[in-house]
C-alpha cells in the first residue's frame, strides 16, 4: 500500500471524469485523472448533441467557449415505413439567437479541449493508462492499480463509462443485463461545410438534428439519428441489445446500419460524403431503475458509469448528466476531503445532492418512459398508420376518390382505433 496519498484519483477522461477533475483542481485539490486512450475523447462516442442550458450553472466559466460543432436550429423527425416515410420539421427563430439551447458535438475534439482546461487549473491528466483494479484499505477504496503501479488516493471517482468495471469491482452494480442496454452504431461522413449548409438549408454555423423511427429497426426497440457537424455528418442507429438478441429471423447489427443508409430518406443527406469513422458504443436504457449504487467508502460513481442516461423519446440525454454528476461528485469530494471524512455515511451526501439536481429529478420524472418506448407497435403499427394515412390523402388514381375524412377514418380504423390503440394512448400518461 502506498504511503503517500493523492487527494483524488479519477478513473476515465470522459465528460464526468473531466468535469470532476476540473472542479477538484479548481478547489486546489491534488487530482490525477487516468485515461486509457491516447487522449481524453479517443475512446468516446456520442450521437451527438449536448444541451448546454442545464450546464450553465455547473460549468459557468467555460461552457460557452467549448469547441462545439453547430448550434441546432432545426429538429426533424422522420417516421419510416418499409417503402415510404413521413417527415416532420420543427424550427423556431429563438433557437437562432444566443444563448443557444443545444449544439452538435464530436467527442475527440471536445474532450481534448476539456482536458486542457483541467490541466490549466492544475489537474493532472495521464493518457494511455488503463486502471486494472481498485486498492482497498480497511474495507474502503483507497486508490487504484494501473499497469503494475499502485496509486493511493483519499477518494476515487469512477467515471469509466457505461461498462464501468470499477463500479462492478466495488460491488456497486450488477453484471450488465441485455435488457438494460442499447447498442449505438455511428458513421462519420465528411462533407464540405458549405455543402452541409446548402443541403440542410442552414446559415453559417447553424445545425440540424434528425431522428428516425420505424422500419429501420425492423420492429426492434430503437431508432436512428443524424446530426450536422462543422464539416461532417454523424449518422447512426440505436437498437436494444435484448431486442436484437430475440429478433427472428436473426439479423446482424451492422446490416441494420447498411439498410438504414440505403434508404432514400438517409441517402439524400450523405450523398458525396466520405466515410471517416465507424464507431460503436453501448447506452444505458434502463433509466432510473438501472442506476448503480452511487457511492461506497472512499469512492463515488459518475456519468455513464453510474447509468446516468435518459431516453425521453424525442430527446436523448447523457452528456449533461455526465458533466453535472461529475461536478456534483467533485463538490462532495472536496467537502469530504476538507472534513477528512470519506466514509460511506458522509458520501451519502452525493446521492442527496444528485436528487436535488436535474440529474436524478429528470430521471425520476421519466421513470416509466422505457415501458412506453419499448412498445413494439411504436416501431411497426404507428409508422404504417401514418404512412398509409398520407398515402390515401396524397394519392390520385383512375378511380373516384372518397372524401378525405372517410378515407382517413378507414385508415385509422385499420391501425389505431382499436383496443390496443386505446391502451397505447393511455400508456402515454406515463411519459
Amino acid at each position, binding site marked *: 500500500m502506498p504511503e503517500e496519498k493523492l487527494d483524488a484519483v479519477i478513473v476515465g477522461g470522459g465528460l464526468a471524469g473531466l468535469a470532476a477533475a476540473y472542479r477538484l483542481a479548481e478547489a486546489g485539490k491534488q487530482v490525477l485523472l487516468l485515461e*486509457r*486512450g*491516447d487522449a481524453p*475523447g*479517443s*475512446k*468516446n*462516442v*456520442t450521437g451527438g448533441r449536448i444541451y448546454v442550458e442545464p450546464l450553465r450553472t455547473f460549468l459557468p466559466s467555460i461552457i460557452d467557449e467549448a469547441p462545439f460543432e453547430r448550434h441546432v436550429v432545426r429538429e426533424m423527425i422522420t417516421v419510416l415505413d418499409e417503402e415510404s416515410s413521413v417527415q416532420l420539421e420543427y424550427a423556431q427563430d429563438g433557437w437562432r439567437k444566443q444563448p443557444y439551447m443545444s449544439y452538435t458535438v*464530436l*467527442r*475527440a*475534439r471536445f*474532450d481534448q479541449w476539456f482536458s486542457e482546461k483541467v490541466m490549466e487549473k492544475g489537474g493532472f491528466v495521464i*493518457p*494511455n*493508462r*488503463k486502471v486494472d483494479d481498485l486498492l482497498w484499505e480497511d474495507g474502503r477504496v483507497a486508490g487504484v492499480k*494501473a*499497469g503494475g503501479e499502485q496509486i493511493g488516493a483519499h477518494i476515487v471517482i469512477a467515471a469509466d463509462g*457505461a*461498462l464501468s*468495471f470499477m463500479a462492478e469491482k466495488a460491488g456497486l452494480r450488477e453484471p*450488465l*443485463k*441485455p435488457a438494460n*442496454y442499447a*447498442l*449505438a*452504431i455511428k*458513421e*462519420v461522413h465528411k462533407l464540405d461545410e458549405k455543402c452541409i449548409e446548402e443541403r440542410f438549408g442552414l446559415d453559417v454555423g447553424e445545425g440540424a438534428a434528425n431522428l428516425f423511427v420505424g422500419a429501420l429497426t425492423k420492429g426492434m426497440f430503437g431508432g436512428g439519428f443524424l446530426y450536422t457537424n462543422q464539416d*461532417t455528418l*454523424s449518422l447512426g442507429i440505436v437498437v436494444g*441489445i435484448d431486442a*436484437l*438478441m430475440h*429478433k427472428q429471423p*436473426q*439479423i*446482424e*447489427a*451492422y446490416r441494420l*446500419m447498411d439498410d438504414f443508409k440505403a434508404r432514400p430518406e438517409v441517402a439524400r443527406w450523405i450523398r458525396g460524403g466520405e*466515410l*471517416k*469513422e*465507424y*464507431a*460503436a*458504443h*453501448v447506452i444505458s436504457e434502463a433509466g432510473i431503475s438501472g442506476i448503480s449504487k452511487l457511492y461506497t467508502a472512499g469512492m463515488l460513481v459518475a456519468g455513464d458509469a453510474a447509468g446516468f442516461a435518459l431516453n425521453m423519446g424525442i430527446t436523448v440525454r447523457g452528456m449533461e448528466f455526465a458533466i453535472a454528476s461529475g461536478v456534483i461528485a467533485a463538490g462532495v469530494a472536496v467537502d469530504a476531503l476538507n472534513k477528512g471524512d470519506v466514509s460511506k455515511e458522509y458520501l451519502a451526501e452525493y446521492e442527496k445532492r444528485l436528487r436535488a439536481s436535474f440529474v436524478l429529478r429528470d430521471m425520476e420524472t421519466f421513470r416509466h418512459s422505457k415501458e412506453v418506448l419499448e412498445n413494439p407497435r411504436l416501431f411497426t403499427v404507428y409508422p404504417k398508420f401514418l404512412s398509409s394515412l398520407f398515402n390515401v390523402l396524397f394519392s390520385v388514381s383512375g378511380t373516384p376518390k372518397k372524401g378525405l375524412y372517410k378515407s382517413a377514418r378507414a385508415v385509422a380504423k385499420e391501425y389505431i382505433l382499436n383496443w390496443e390503440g386505446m391502451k397505447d394512448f393511455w400508456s402515454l400518461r406515463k411519459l
Partner: protein
Amino acid sequence: MKIEEKIACNAIKNDKESHIKLKQDVCKNCRERFCVYACPGHLYSLSEETGEMAVEYAGCLECGTCKIACIYGSVSWEYPGGEYGVRYRYG
C-alpha cells in the same frame, strides 16, 4: 461498402494479445450465436476449419455489446491495455 472496409477507416493500434477471450466449451453448446449478430463490427464467426467460434479482436470498436449479449458467459472481455485498441478521431 463492406463492413471490413468501414472498420479499415478507423485508427486502431493492435496489441499482440487479444483482449477478448472465449470459452470454447460454452460456445460449443450455444445455438443462438448472439455474439455473431450483436457485434457491430461483425468480428465473430465460426471457423470453418475447426468449427470453433473465433473473434477478430483487431477490429474491435470497444463497445462491449458481445460481453452483454453473451448471456452464457463465454466472453471475457476487458479493455485493451493503455495505448492499444481503437482511437476515435471524431467520436
